[in-house]
């Protein structure tokens, strides 16, 4: 190939790159940005069936009622508790049950929940933990409670036990797979030999080498899963409390009410939540890059 042909080929490649980027923008970024702008316009009364012209009224109502802040705080509580519990469980499985997970029957039981959609998981937890559910009947059968109604409220409860359990059941297999891959990729088996050889006990190695290495490497994925739980909808809708609502449930309720004047508030909540997530992501990724 001559130099001029080489240059032409390079230019063609560069041109193809520009087109690919344009297609990516068109398919991935544009719909999201368009939706966000539409939601912003709707929340300011600029567009929509009952548009009245630019107003801050819907935002003021959302912020002054405290519903958004309350839902955000509740969502954060659920997401932090669920991701912390799931991470701890996945770490225990990765660090202490590796051999069984790689080849044994334990792997089938662990990975099975990966195939279950969130909606179905919500139903399963409901069937298990409701006052007339499976666990309640077993406990009643064992004579530990005198009536089914004595069984504690573990779904539709204000502490969100059912929501947290459903998310933990879904997250543990995913995180365990991720941690096992990191364990192999970071050569932790050999590093444990090194640690032992230098005089470190297994628990010292786990506390000072294995856990920090796994968590540091998995941090971006953990953050993304945390945001996934933060914005989850099906599970809190099915088994969440009536008093405490997660952000997505609150927003959808505003959209679906009979009062059409609530719709701009639904958009205001959605836009505020999106901005909150973007802020969280940008701060976290900057911190991760700094410590990376």
């Amino acid at each position, binding site marked *: 190939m001559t130099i001029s042909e080489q240059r032409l080929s390079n230019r063609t490649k560069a041109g193809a790159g520009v087109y690919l980027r344009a297609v990516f923008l068109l398919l991935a970024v544009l719909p999201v940005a368009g939706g966000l702008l539409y939601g912003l316009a709707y929340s300011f009364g600029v567009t929509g069936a009952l548009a009245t012209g630019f107003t801050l009224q819907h935002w003021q109502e959302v912020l002054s009622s405290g519903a958004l802040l309350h839902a955000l705080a509740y969502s954060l509580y659920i997401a932090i508790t669920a991701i912390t519990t799931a991470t701890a469980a996945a770490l225990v499985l990765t660090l202490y049950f590796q051999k069984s997970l790689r080849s044994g029957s334990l792997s089938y039981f662990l990975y099975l929940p990966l195939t279950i959609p969130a909606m179905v998981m919500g139903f399963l937890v409901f069937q298990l933990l409701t006052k007339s559910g499976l666990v309640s009947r077993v406990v009643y059968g064992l004579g530990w409670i005198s009536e089914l109604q004595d069984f504690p409220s573990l779904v539709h409860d204000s502490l969100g036990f059912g929501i947290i359990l459903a998310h933990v059941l879904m997250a543990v297999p995913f995180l365990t797979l991720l941690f096992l891959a990191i364990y192999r990729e970071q050569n932790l088996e050999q*590093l444990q*030999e090194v*640690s*032992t050889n*230098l*005089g470190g006990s297994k628990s010292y190695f786990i506390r000072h080498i294995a856990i920090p290495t796994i968590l540091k490497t998995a941090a971006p994925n953990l953050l993304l899963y945390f945001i996934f739980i933060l914005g989850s909808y099906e599970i809190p809708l099915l088994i969440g409390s009536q008093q405490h609502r997660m952000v997505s449930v609150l927003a959808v309720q505003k959209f679906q009410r009979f009062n059409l004047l609530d719709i701009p508030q639904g958009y205001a909540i959605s836009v505020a939540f999106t901005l909150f997530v973007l802020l969280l992501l940008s701060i976290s990724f900057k911190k991760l890059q700094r410590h990376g």
Partner: protein
Amino acid sequence: MLTIQNLHKAYHSQNVLDQVSLELPQGQVLAVLGRSGCGKTTLLKTAAGLLQPDAGSIKWAGESMDLVPPREREMVYLFQEPLLFPHLSVFENIAYGLRVRKVKEAEVQQKVEHLLQELELQEHAQKKPSQLSGGQRQRVAFGRAIIFLPRVLLLDEPFASLDAQTRATMQKLFLRLARKYNITALFVTHDVKEALLTGDRFAYMAAGKIKIYTSREAFIEDPATGVRDELAFWNSIDQKITPLP
């Protein structure tokens, strides 16, 4: 003194260590020359306690090490790859052996800083392993292995992955620190020059058997080691490039 007697290890009925015996006085380096697959790594890992022998015994100063777990054996195996802890700084990697022994902070600081100077790594103390070159990483691994002055250092071709120049620098560094800290070491290599450079005593290993030489001359003279072939090769090259009078 390190004493290994009739060490035997087999994998699937194939002998990897066949009645290996050796004695190594304190403060001396035994260079073990051998080709890949001759059982060198198995010998070192068995001495470190990372592998269990099928038979034989390992003693240090007359005390049996057979039932001593690897973490208490203080016979440090230096892998071919540096295998540094990725999230720890150079300082903390070197300090690891002191931290697990719960050495006081002031002593840790003093010992690590001193060793960093010896290894010429002062300006890299706070860097992560990913920010270092291959030679620097191997120096950190070496520092991490010797900081708590183990009984025996077991080096498994530690400089094999380095370029020729860095390798020569590391060999000199090893010799200097081995003399300074009176290190007892088993240095395994497939490189004749490296064996001659680093060893006080010499051995040759093939098919799981070890042969110990009484002197450097005996090691050089034995055709099995290949030292004479290597010398003959370099002499022939020398004659080719030296112009005739």
